[in-house]
């Protein structure tokens, strides 16, 4: 039931107002002075307070100010009750935060109408507070989900890469194994041949080398296929070393890429970072594209969260490869090209990732940076890659990311990062929200 607190030091007047209030179906309580009014306000939490201005000790304005200072009570609407002649009190009261006023003597209908208005206002206010509280929880939840998604996208990308990296390692493992077995097998023949040669040497020193022995050595030379071994053994060794070098390169690049870091910015050699990302992602692009790198040699270290930066480059390179694959079909018309450039532009470093893929249709434009926006078929894209790249570059590094595109010709993504660290304006990761389409 709606509760109204009536504050008046004159008992007759208090009773009169009380009755008028109850006649409207509200519950009324009376406080005969300011202190009591504050007490009842905090224990009873009335929906509206009808507050007499002229009271001894603590007057209505003082009570009103105290109410407005109290976070728990400030939202209760207060209607000032004043005599007609007390205009200045009305102004002072409204300035101090009163909701409304009535003048004595009052008509019951007017009091009733003003009460209804105050109650409505209180109800609206309460509803807004509840909605706001719910919105705040939802926003917090959403931010948490976005963080989770960013992490999930990274894990997904790494999981996908792991399969490619396994392939990159399995291939040299095959031929290093083949070559080593080859060397083991031929050594049996070579060992036998060496034995014969030792015997021939000894016999020659002793002066009793027989033609039979020479013939046996000749046969062993023939069996071992010495001419073949002379050309194949150095090649087998050379190619095995290449294989070992390849595995080493991949493993070093993996270490660079996964760079645990501490989530803080540190000076990063971007050329090296990009190179590592290109190596570990090679299985994603090498079947569809040739890679051209053009790295500025004078690039200073850039304050960067290396792991996040690598994720940006990975997303852009994988996109470039997929755009080329989409344009080239089965690749029977030859490979496309991915060109990666770095440049210094005064206080900025610029990274260009250019592809000869399908290009981005004009109708899509900036939507590519929206969360969950994807044109890739199911299973190929989550619509998170560019939105995360945008969040990392813009929010976390104070940089910019944009693209130039021509349908059917290709796309260039341009990432710009400041060389000198800037004060972070937005500490949490935020995504560009997809615009709701009506």
């Amino acid at each position, binding site marked *: 039931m709606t509760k109204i607190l009536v504050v008046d030091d004159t008992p007759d007047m208090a009773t009169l107002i009380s009755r008028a209030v109850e006649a409207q179906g509200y519950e009324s309580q009376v406080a005969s002075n300011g202190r009591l009014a504050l007490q009842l306000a905090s224990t009873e939490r009335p929906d509206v307070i009808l507050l007499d201005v002229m009271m001894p000790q603590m007057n209505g304005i003082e009570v009103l100010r105290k109410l407005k200072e109290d976070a728990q009570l400030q939202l209760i609407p207060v209607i000032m009750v004043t005599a007609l002649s007390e205009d200045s009190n009305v102004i002072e009261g409204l300035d101090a935060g009163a909701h409304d006023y009535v003048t004595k003597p009052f008509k019951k209908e007017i009091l009733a109408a003003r009460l209804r208005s105050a109650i409505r206002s209180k109800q609206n206010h309460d509803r807004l507070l509840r909605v706001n509280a719910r919105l705040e929880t939802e926003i917090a939840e959403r931010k948490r989900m976005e963080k989770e998604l960013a992490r999930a996208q990274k894990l997904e990308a790494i999981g996908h890469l792991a*399969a*490619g990296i*396994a*392939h*990159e390692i*399995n*291939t*040299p*493992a*095959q*031929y*290093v*194994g*083949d*070559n080593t*077995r*080859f060397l083991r097998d031929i050594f049996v023949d070579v060992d036998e041949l060496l034995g014969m040669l030792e015997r021939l040497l000894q016999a020659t020193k002793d002066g009793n080398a027989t033609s039979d022995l020479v013939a046996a050595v000749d046969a062993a030379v023939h069996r071992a296929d010495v001419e073949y071994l002379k050309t*194949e053994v150095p*090649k*087998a060794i050379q*190619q095995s070393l*290449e*294989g070992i070098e390849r595995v080493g390169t991949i493993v070093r690049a993996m270490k660079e890429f996964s760079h645990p870091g501490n989530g803080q910015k540190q000076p990063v050699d971007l050329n090296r970072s990009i190179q590592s990302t290109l190596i570990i992602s090679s*299985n994603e692009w*090498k*079947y*569809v594209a040739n890679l051209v790198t053009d790295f500025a040699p004078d690039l200073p270290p850039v304050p960067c969260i290396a792991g996040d930066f690598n994720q940006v480059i990975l997303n852009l390179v994988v996109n470039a490869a997929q755009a080329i694959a989409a344009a080239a079909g*089965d*690749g*029977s018309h030859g*490979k496309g090209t991915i060109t990666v450039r770095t440049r210094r532009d005064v206080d900025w470093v610029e990274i260009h990732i250019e592809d000869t893929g399908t290009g981005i249709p004009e109708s899509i434009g900036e939507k590519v940076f929206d969360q969950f926006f994807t044109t890739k078929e199911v299973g190929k894209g989550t619509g998170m890659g560019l939105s995360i790249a945008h969040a990392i570059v813009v929010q976390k590094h104070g940089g910019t990311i944009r693209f130039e595109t021509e349908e059917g010709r290709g796309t260039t993504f341009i990432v710009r990062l400041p060389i000198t660290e800037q004060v972070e304006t937005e500490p949490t990761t935020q995504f560009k929200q997809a615009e709701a389409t009506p």
Partner: protein
Amino acid sequence: MEHTVLLIDDDQNILRGLARALRHQPYWLHTATSGEEAMLVLKSRCVDLVVVDEHMPGMRGSELLAWVADHRPEVMRIVLTGHPTAETAIRAINEGRVYQFFTKPCNPAHLAVAIRKALEHKDLLEQHRRLLDSLKLCESPVNEKEHA
């Protein structure tokens, strides 16, 4: 009759390593570094068996296998891939109708055994076909008489 085996992989080092491993095997070895090149070899000479990598620029291994299964069904087919996925295996079996599926790194001795078995199987199939043909030749005069 000497058999011919064609190895297809985009990595030259793989081809050279396998050629060394299989050098004493009783068949001719040829190599190709792409599906397209392999198709040219298959069209120009007699090949009994192919060992195909899956991931190659241009034509994928499974596409080549499907082509061989359709156009040269008598050529035996073996997969050797460094990136085995369920999708690759399903395509190799359903479209390429492969004889065996190997993953890198594999022991070349196992590969050599599989190649030999596949070639024996092929020889038996051909013998079977020849026998069926000669049986038909024997039967046909009888049939003609019955119809007469």
